């Protein structure tokens, strides 16, 4: 009996070994016998629309669909990389979309689920544009562009990103402590699970004079990272690239 969480896989054609790791993990007994699988955002490095007919989205859909067909619910929350992922792909892959900030009860304990980016309130640049590009109008404008144009720009964005940072991993600001506590308080939970920051850890904290915990999921750049929640414990596990 276990519920599994992953996030920040940043799947990309340039890192086929991570895509293979993802596929192999989703085909594993651990996943196929789980109570549920949650993907809390940034499954891919860039998502240019549900109509993308490239190989990677198809492989992702197939891998997730097989988990769903095995009777395991798969929940998905968009991250900052894949916020254009919508209902069309979700249906194709058998995903259930979740809003950022959803509370699910895990073995009797209400747990707040977030991608995590909205908690990084210190990041002026990020927060300045986040909402601006997520309005329905903007999304509609972007998605109305020709697929090839979106693809070309995703490619350019990747190049620029690497040129800026010298690596595929950008420096990501950590969550703001006050914002995190307020989100937990408002949701009336003592447990938060999120990704985005690429700083996997289980943090213990005091919230409204209660013991609380914030669990941060790891990324999949060098290896896989999974959070396993059972009725008795939470455990962050690594997955090696074979």
């Amino acid at each position, binding site marked *: 009996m276990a519920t599994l969480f992953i996030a920040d896989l940043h799947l990309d054609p340039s890192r086929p070994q991570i895509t293979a790791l993802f596929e192999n993990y989703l085909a594993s007994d651990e996943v196929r016998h789980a109570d549920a699988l949650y993907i809390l955002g940034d499954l891919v490095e860039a998502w240019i629309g549900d109509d993308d007919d490239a190989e990677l989205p198809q492989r992702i859909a197939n891998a997730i669909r097989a988990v769903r067909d095995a009777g395991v619910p798969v929940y998905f929350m968009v991250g900052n990389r894949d916020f254009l992922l919508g209902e069309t792909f979700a249906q194709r892959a058998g995903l259930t979309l979740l809003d950022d900030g959803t509370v699910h009860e895990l073995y009797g304990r209400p747990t707040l689920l977030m991608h995590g980016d909205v908690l990084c309130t210190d990041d002026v*640049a990020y*927060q300045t544009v*986040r909402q*601006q590009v997520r309005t329905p109008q*903007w999304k509609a404008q972007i998605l109305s*562009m020709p697929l090839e144009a979106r693809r070309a720009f995703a490619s350019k964005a990747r190049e620029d990103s690497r040129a800026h940072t010298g690596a595929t991993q950008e*420096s*990501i600001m950590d969550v703001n402590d006050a914002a995190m506590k307020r989100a937990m308080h408002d949701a009336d939970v003592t447990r938060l699970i999120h990704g985005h920051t690429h700083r996997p850890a289980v943090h213990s904290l005091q919230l409204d004079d209660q013991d609380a915990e914030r669990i941060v999921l790891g990324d999949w750049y060098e290896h896989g990272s999974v959070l396993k929640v059972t009725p008795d414990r939470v455990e962050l596990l690594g997955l090696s690239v074979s």
Partner: protein
Amino acid sequence: MSDPAFINHAGYVRVSCAHVKSRLIPMLKSLLATLLLLAPLTLVPLTLTAQTTKRAPTTAPASPSPDVVLHTSQGDITVALYPDKAPKSVANFLQYVRDGFYDGTVMHRAIPGYLVQGGLYTRDLQPKRTRSAIASEADNGLSNLRGTLVVARGADPNSGTSQFFFNLVDNRRLDFTGNQSGLTWGYTVFGKVTKGMDVVDKIAALPTRGLGPFAADVPNPLVVITSARVVGEDSPASASSAAAPAVAKPARKAAKHQG
């Protein structure tokens, strides 16, 4: 590529069809901005900036530039501008003021101990259509000290348009530390509150909530800039331009939008 659009080596979009061009280029730029800015690009951690050459923040000179007063629902905020240190940013801000762009917009983001931000969203939290983005002047030596007025932007240093923020405390970590990337560029200080910092503090002290597209940090009640005026000038220069900014039309020709 069968599509009419392609990207040349310099990264510019070329479009073979003139009819498509006026519409497609801003859209492509918007997408680029989206994909770039929504990547987790952030300010560089202090540890990474230690080896860069940091310019010592200097005191801003007295300026002959006109002051601007923001009449808000919480009171008036008067700012002096630094045209000598940030000519493009000051001209940009003054143009928005004179166009009446800020009239009826809100301060949509307030974080005590950090900043108060506004300059784009209407009362119903829809983004307005901006003019083209301006080049960053964050390397002007001015530091993000309490009370300073700053150009907000996306991850690209040169993506500032109409949004601005007030520093509530000395936020030196928002200063320019090097031109290596958007992570080190920092944020352009182009003015300072000369009167009404208590109003800024009052806005920051308001309770906040999630509202519209924002998950949190929107002051409650909404803080509206009822009007923004250049001191000594009675009204926006052009009534027609004041009425021009339409709500969120990112594909319009004039909108480069945070590019």
